[in-house]
């Protein structure tokens, strides 16, 4: 299994890898010097031209990175304007004859957070072929992180509690169950957990957590990256049992987590249980809406006629025998079939 992964590069980044290069998640792929706030630099007056005339004398276009002393504009008669320090040229104001430049800060590394082989290198991005299993979620939060997978709960429907986060979780990607409170997420971050995979989370708690992180970042109290990915849904929704078992069987493997993109790569892994939109009789299914959200079961029968849900919505439906012992008629639109691992 391989997936193409794209690492976007900021303006003016210096790449450190070549095509064919094998990279590790913690490897620096490129460096960049992030620009600070923009400042004005007189151009027209130094060239002794009008503001409008000086437009044609610029040597650079917006987005160009200039080293200290590099030429920004020249008049052809020996007058020139040089960059006073390493900066990013943002634009030129033809009304007052100034250039808007942003000084470059200290060099910062750019990590890919993935293991794989570099397939292309450009000014805009580096592409890496990742050999591993991809698990896509329905939502997430945070940046790119990597770490070893560690199971934090024993059952797919179990809530991830703050007490399960200890020093052993530092730098790991924790796999939880049905939800985690804002307090648990805050503790996880404080303990240096790299990321968390959950069946679901209450949207409100996720937003509360994000809000506290923004405030802490504003006052400089947050360091390091942290990501959360939800696999099944929003609310108290457990991980599907088959997927939970798959994560269990890969505990200790290296994984990369992309919060905002809701993606997980697990390296050296078997394919995860695949899903199919339309379930058939005999399929193992997972339900996606309340009151059965996140529950797995077997589709026993598809009804001949459309059936009304308790809400009154009439839809093609089937009888599902859930793993918790309950049986219920569920709209087929709310079910996904889990493909058996050996199906091919």
């Amino acid at each position, binding site marked *: 299994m391989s997936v193409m992964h794209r690492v*976007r*590069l*900021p*303006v003016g980044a210096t790449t450190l890898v070549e095509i064919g290069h094998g990279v590790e998640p913690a490897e620096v792929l490129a460096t960049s010097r*992030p*620009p*600070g*706030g*923009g400042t004005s630099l007189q151009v027209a007056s130094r060239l002794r031209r009008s503001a409008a005339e000086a*437009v044609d004398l610029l040597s650079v*276009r*917006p*987005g160009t990175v200039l080293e200290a002393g590099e030429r920004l504009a020249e008049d052809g008669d020996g007058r020139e304007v040089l960059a006073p320090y390493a900066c*990013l*040229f*943002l*634009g*030129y*104001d*033809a*009304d007052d004859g100034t250039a*808007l430049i*942003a000084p470059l*800060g200290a060099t910062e590394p750019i990590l890919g957070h993935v293991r794989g082989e570099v397939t292309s290198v450009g*000014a*805009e991005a580096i592409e890496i072929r990742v050999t591993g299993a991809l698990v896509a979620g*329905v*939502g997430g939060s945070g940046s790119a992180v990597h770490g070893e997978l560690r199971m934090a709960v024993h059952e797919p429907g179990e809530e991830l509690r703050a007490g399960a986060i200890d020093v052993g979780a530092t730098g790991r990607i924790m796999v939880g169950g049905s939800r985690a409170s804002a307090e648990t997420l805050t503790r996880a971050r404080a303990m240096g957990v790299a990321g968390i995979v959950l069946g679901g989370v*209450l*949207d*409100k*708690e996720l*937003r509360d957590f994000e809000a506290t992180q923004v405030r802490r970042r*504003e006052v400089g109290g947050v360091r390091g990256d942290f990501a959360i990915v939800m696999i099944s*849904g*929003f*609310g108290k929704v457990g991980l599907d049992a088959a997927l939970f078992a798959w994560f269990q069987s890969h505990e200790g493997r290296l994984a990369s987590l992309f919060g905002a993109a809701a993606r997980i790569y697990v390296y050296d892994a078997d394919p995860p249980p695949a899903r199919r*939109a*339309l379930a058939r009789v005999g399929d193992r299914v997972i339900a*996606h*809406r*309340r*009151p*059965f*959200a996140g529950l797995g079961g077997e589709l026993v029968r598809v009804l001949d006629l459309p059936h*009304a*849900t*308790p*809400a*009154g*919505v*009439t*839809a*093609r439906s089937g009888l599902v025998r859930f793993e918790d012992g309950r049986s219920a008629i*569920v*709209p087929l*639109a*709310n079910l996904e079939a889990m493909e058996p691992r050996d199906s091919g």
Partner: protein
Amino acid sequence: MTEISTELALLVDVGSAWAKAGVIGRIRGRWRLVAHAAQPTAWGPAELRRSLIRQLNAAGDPRLADRFDELLASANRIECHTARQPGRLAVVAVSRELSGSTARRAAEAAGWQVTELVTLDDGRSLAERLATLQAADVDAWLVAGGFDDSRSPRALEAAALVASARMPDGGPVIWAGSAQLTNEVMLLFEGGAASAVANARPDAKREEPGPLRDRLQAILRQSVAPEDEAHLSTIAFTHAVGAIAADGGLRVLAVDLGARGGVRVVAEADGTTSTTVHSSGGMAGATLMAGAAGRVARLAGDAGDEAAVADVLQTLRARPASLPQTPEELSATQAAARMLIGAMVEDPATDPVDLVIGAGLTISGAPHPAQAARMLLDGVRPLGITQLAVDSGSVLGPLGSLGDDEIGEGMTLLADDLLLPLGTAVVCRGGEPGDAAMRVTVHRSGWPTPSPVEVRVGQLLVAPLGRGQEAELLIEPAAGVSLGAPRRSSRIQARATGGAVGLILDARGMPIALPRRGDDRRAVLAGWRDALIRETERIA
């Protein structure tokens, strides 16, 4: 064996999350909708056909039982579909509240999906803004900021940001900021890449998004959706609504609330139309609206607390092809629909219309017609006397993909199956809470003259008026109460047509005022819900 003559046509509307299909066939000389199916698009066309065949086998001529597959395969197929990929736009503006919000609304109303909004007051560093914009995978860029009477350096900085982050040939750039900076901004980009349009926010108090919206619509058509336009749902739906307006000599407002996007069409009696496409205005977009969960929880009353509603809204985004199973989820979904319709019709504001049409699975597939009527009534707030109908068979899109010479024939053939009439709404505003808002006398041919019905401010009543029935209304608004049009006398006469719900008398005002206290609010909301569903017989 005698050969049975059959004539079938297949109408298909393939949306981003749901596909709908209807079979029309000739029964005893009349064309009728003989089968209808809706399913998640991901299930594929073969399953959709199997669903239709199952229905035809159950209800069709048993002598054709083995032939429906073959008949459907050879049937005339009329299809429309949602654009395969929405146009993605990055918006860079000076201020989130002024230029940024104006630009964003104009872009979404033009059908663009705003994937990035960067403003110079968003609290991010320059490096973060640059990184965000460079990572943006977009089809076009919109830059806005500065008033027309000034040369704002911040507006120029916004344009410079785009110039720095955007790769050469990285899509068109539209400048909709200060007119005094146009020349400078054009110089920031390679020749032909940037174009200017009138400032959408020419000063602090004025918003003029029309020219920007028109330009963005034109660019969207040129650069992103060069598909067969006639079969695009937005175009086809507009075409059908225009044909209905022209056919009936009516002013029509139609809202198509899809899983991901929404479309609003206003059609004049001469058939001319104006359309706004809200790319994030569908059910999945509810969670993106400011304070959505709280608003929906308040509007629904019986959908649970804000946290529970927030999860439902996120589920609508994450799993747009799933269906509400519990009454609470349905209530939240329909309240979200009312909020989304409200957002669609208020930008730009709509003058009174004769007919409001609702389309999209949430509205047309509502379990009870009263729920569909409630979504249209609460979302649109159609002041005056207005007919309400839904596209229950999802036929408007496919029908609208027909040419001008065929659409009239198609409408005639479908006749009673074209729209499901819900009835007529009489909506007023003004008056003091608890006081009488209007007295309405309903005269039906062949019925004894009834006593007038008094509707109090804040009240919602329903009088029975079935499909195909008509009534003469004598409306006497109280002092300070308006039905929209200027009044020459204290009495207004109007004609009402019936439908699945009946005659709706709505004095809840504009906008609808809800009690602050939770218990009071829930009681009032439940009263309105019950009135629409159950009071039909009570006030006859």
